[in-house]
């Protein structure tokens, strides 16, 4: 093969496809030989490489796009890879060895990798082109679904496979009524048997996803160009505002076909991943190997390794993959592998625990594991999968096999770590991040890691989807031996201590620990002065435990709370003055306008919490800006604080023809009483004057919805990273009762919430019933909590802006300048 080398003496490698397969193939090649190729990548999506299997958690709002980026721009830069993102390759000339894009880029190659992935299958139903009909394939699809789900309504997902169920779950999490339409009688019938399928159906129902089985779609109905429903063959019509097609994928082999490279279902490749054209290779979902196309991540990684071997001079040999599947629906633990449904010559071992909703079925053929389905407790999935792949004879352990690895090996006096010890160093443990056992072991040994969190931080193993967590934990155990402290119970506060938050809080009070060093000493902290996670937590816990006694430690505050403004990406700050209940006046607005002009503040923005945000203020300007705002009667809005932020209100009976109570007045009263208080995480309130809820009180940490007969107190809403409606704590008749309950619940949260744990998470942990019992039903406890809140407020209601405008903490805002350096000339 004639090799055309470029100036740097490197062969030119072109990769079409910037997805998981393309990037992983490149990573594997670089791992073997950093310098052999000059690499160019073409991607149809206009962005860097992200983890497509994690789109479901993004749709469900459990992760963000940033969380699932695998390789950011720096990876391409550091490895001198030229990336054409958003540039679709339109032609391959296999004779001239050139690829061309629609916008005229032409590039020559010595080796070409096709990693074009797959396309979602769109059913050719009438109405498939209506607005609101989407596939579930890339982040644009997710964005479309998220935007439609923002309006609530109903979603239909056609397809009860892995992807369809994850889509439906995500949409239900986003507040839509989701229904899955499935052609077969069992959900995920390619992975689950009827029993597990039924349990899954029940589990999904509990999470707001309905299923219609054995249903064939006939027509998508529309009005004004938008989808309004789905008609089934049996005549039923199901209304919907969004219709997702998730019926499967088809290898994207068009480019190859047009270039006369042999294609069957996918691009045909041999065991070394060569396609049928000189210098051309294919990998991932677009490839067809021994009659098989794959749509799961594990086989794709195996292909990438074989391809990298081939392209770096070793003999790459891919022999096909054995598959296993996990479903990414929070709280639903499902695993399936191999011939899970059994068949002739197979024996089943089945275990059920109705109370826990657990179902396990292990299929045995000729004394070996041939397949497994696990529902409700899938921790041993990896173990069964290994037994199956390695063809281990399980005749001796079949009586305990179904109880899992620990039971089986523990009962026999075997070392449960033996399997982990026996794993080869090159065995991949974390598929999301491509981390092998060897890398984990060397990180544990080199850096003295002894916790799961530590291993995650250093290696990223199990830090993405988390399904390999048990395996990573076992490797940690096997590597540390006796040095491993099992993490039973709650997680430690951070890597500096083995104590969880609750223990730290209890011991601060019980042992009267009144400073950070005293706490660290008594609780045997492992680091000299903590870290950026535990110091702010301890500072808060001490502040809350000893009001008026504990001296706040500025150096243990995150910068925003140290300088009382919000740091921005360029190192400037934003300033948000308090506007009680969202009310302002001509005088305040004039003062704000004057400040903006006087200090040349570049941006002014109205916030979602009914405040005005001044952005781009330099740190040294802050005290003077505050002085001017103070002069007009305005104080810090604490927009930077883990503390009371804003109380949003509507205009209530003052103006509104529907208002039932003085919501503005109550909001102002709450804010005047509660401002300045520090809390475990930020606290946002709202008061709506009637159930139309214009102040959006039902997605706040604490909300009040006024009704004719009184005040509904709501708690535990969120509308940020997670979206969650509030739950009703109670209803009271008077404003005074409302204020007492709200302050009592806030104080309970202050005393018992974990640092950075928002109210909704705290309630999920302790249960709403506990709060009702302690704050609503128990008047004595409520009054005591209220009194402690009131006492604590005596020490916290000093305007931090006024103090600093008057010169407090001047060094923080001053900084230094180096003198001119005449001496050096």
């Amino acid at each position, binding site marked *: 093969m004639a090799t055309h080398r470029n100036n740097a003496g490197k062969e030119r490698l072109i990769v079409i496809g910037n997805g998981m397969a393309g990037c992983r193939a490149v990573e594997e090649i670089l791992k073997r030989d950093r310098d052999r190729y000059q690499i160019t990548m073409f991607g149809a999506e206009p962005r860097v490489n992200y983890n497509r299997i994690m789109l479901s958690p993004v749709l469900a709002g459990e992760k963000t796009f940033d969380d699932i980026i695998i390789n950011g721009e*720096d990876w391409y830069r550091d490895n001198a890879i030229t990336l054409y993102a958003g540039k679709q390759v339109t032609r391959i000339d296999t004779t001239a060895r050139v690829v061309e894009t629609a916008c005229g880029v032409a590039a020559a190659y010595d080796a070409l990798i096709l990693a074009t992935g797959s396309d979602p299958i769109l059913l050719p139903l009438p109405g498939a082109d209506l607005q609101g009909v989407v596939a579930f394939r890339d982040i644009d699809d997710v964005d479309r679904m998220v935007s439609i789900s923002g309006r609530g309504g109903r979603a239909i997902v056609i397809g009860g496979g892995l992807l369809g169920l994850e889509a439906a779950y995500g949409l239900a999490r986003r507040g839509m009524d989701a229904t899955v339409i499935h052609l077969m009688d069992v959900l995920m019938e390619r992975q689950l048997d009827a029993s597990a399928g039924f349990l899954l159906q029940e589990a999904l129902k509990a999470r707001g996803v309905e299923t219609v089985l054995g249903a064939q779609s006939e027509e998508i109905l529309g009005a004004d160009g938008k989808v309004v429903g789905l008609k089934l063959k049996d005549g039923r019509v199901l209304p919907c505002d969004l219709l997702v097609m998730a019926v499967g994928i088809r290898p994207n082999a068009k480019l190859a076909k047009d270039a006369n490279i042999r294609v069957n279902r996918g691009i045909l490749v041999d065991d070394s991943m060569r396609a049928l054209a000189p210098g051309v290779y294919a990998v991932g979902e677009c490839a067809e190997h021994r009659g098989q196309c794959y749509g799961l991540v594990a086989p794709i990684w195996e292909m990438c390794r074989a391809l990298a071997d081939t392209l770096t001079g070793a003999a790459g040999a891919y022999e096909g993959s054995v598959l296993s599947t996990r479903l990414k629906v929070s709280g639903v633990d499902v695993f399936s592998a191999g011939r899970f449904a059994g068949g002739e010559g197979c024996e089943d071992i089945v275990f059920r625990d109705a109370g826990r909703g657990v179902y396990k079925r292990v299929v045995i053929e000729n004394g070996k594991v041939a397949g497994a389905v696990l529902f409700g407790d899938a921790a041993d999935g990896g173990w069964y999968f290994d037994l199956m792949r390695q063809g281990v004879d399980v005749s001796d352990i079949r009586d305990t096999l179904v109880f899992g690895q620990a039971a089986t090996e523990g009962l026999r006096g075997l070392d449960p770590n033996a399997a982990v010890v026996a794993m080869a160093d090159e065995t991949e443990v974390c598929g999301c991040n491509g981390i092998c056992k060897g890398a984990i072991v060397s990180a544990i040994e080199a850096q003295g890691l002894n916790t799961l969190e530590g291993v995650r*931080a*250093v*290696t*990223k193993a199990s830090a993405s989807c988390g399904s390999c967590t048990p395996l990573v934990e076992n490797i940690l155990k096997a590597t540390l031996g006796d040095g491993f402290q099992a993490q039973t119970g709650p997680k430690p506060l951070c890597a500096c201590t083995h104590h969880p938050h609750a223990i730290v809080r209890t011991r601060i009070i019980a042992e009267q620990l009144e400073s950070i060093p005293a706490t660290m000493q008594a609780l045997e902290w492992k*680091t*000299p*002065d*903590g*870290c*950026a996670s535990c*110091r*702010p937590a301890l500072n808060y816990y001490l502040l809350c435990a000893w009001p008026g006694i504990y001296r706040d430690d*500025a*150096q*243990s505050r*995150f*910068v*925003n709370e*140290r*300088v009382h403004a919000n*740091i921005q*990406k360029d*190192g400037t700050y934003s300033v948000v003055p308090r506007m009680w209940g969202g009310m302002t006046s001509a005088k305040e607005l004039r003062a704000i306008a004057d400040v903006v002009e006087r200090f040349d503040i570049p941006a002014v923005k109205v916030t979602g919490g009914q405040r005005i945000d001044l952005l781009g203020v330099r740190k040294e300007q802050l005290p003077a800006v505050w002085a001017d705002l103070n002069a007009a009667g305005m104080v810090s809005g604490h927009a930077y604080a883990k503390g009371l932020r804003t109380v949003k209100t509507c205009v209530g009976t003052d103006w509104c023809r529907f208002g039932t109570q003085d919501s503005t007045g109550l909001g102002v009263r709450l804010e005047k009483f509660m401002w300045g208080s520090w809390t475990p995480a930020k606290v946002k309130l709202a008061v709506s004057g009637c159930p139309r809820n214009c102040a959006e009180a039902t997605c706040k940490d604490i909300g009040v919805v006024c009704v004719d007969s009184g005040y509904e107190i709501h708690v535990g809403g969120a509308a940020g990273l997670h979206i969650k409606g509030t739950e009703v704590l109670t209803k009271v008749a008077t404003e005074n009762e409302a204020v007492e309950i709200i302050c009592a619940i806030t104080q309970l949260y202050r005393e018992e919430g974990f640092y950075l744990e928002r109210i909704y998470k705290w309630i999920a942990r302790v249960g709403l019933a506990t709060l009702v019992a302690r704050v609503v039903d128990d008047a004595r406890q409520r009054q005591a909590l209220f009194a402690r809140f009131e006492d604590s407020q005596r020490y916290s209601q000093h305007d931090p802006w006024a103090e600093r405008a008057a010169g407090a903490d001047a*060094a923080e805002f001053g*900084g*230094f*300048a*180096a*003198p*001119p*350096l005449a*001496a*050096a*000339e």
Partner: protein
Amino acid sequence: MSAALFLEPAWADICAFDDLPVRGARRVETSGAPVAIFRTGDDRVFALIDRCPHKHGPLSMGIVHGHQVTCPLHAMVIDLASGELTGADAGKGCAPRVDVRVHGGRVLLALPAS
């Protein structure tokens, strides 16, 4: 920081040692890039260019713990002695070191002569 290769570095008198907060930092404006001077819990002093290798956050605003600082923008942890990112980001970038010493209770910074 190798501009003054054959010259004694120009030691600029910045501030008193006591002006530096324990477990804290101060920013120094220079004719070039601003410098962050750190004082750790054990009273060691370090100086780095005040710019996180990740997204250029001001390290002088971070929380100082051990001989490390956590950047205020995205919680990258930087080793004060080497300026290198640590943990999972190790090897991915470095804030250049600046020579600093304490002499007679004063903090002196070696600045490039240009």
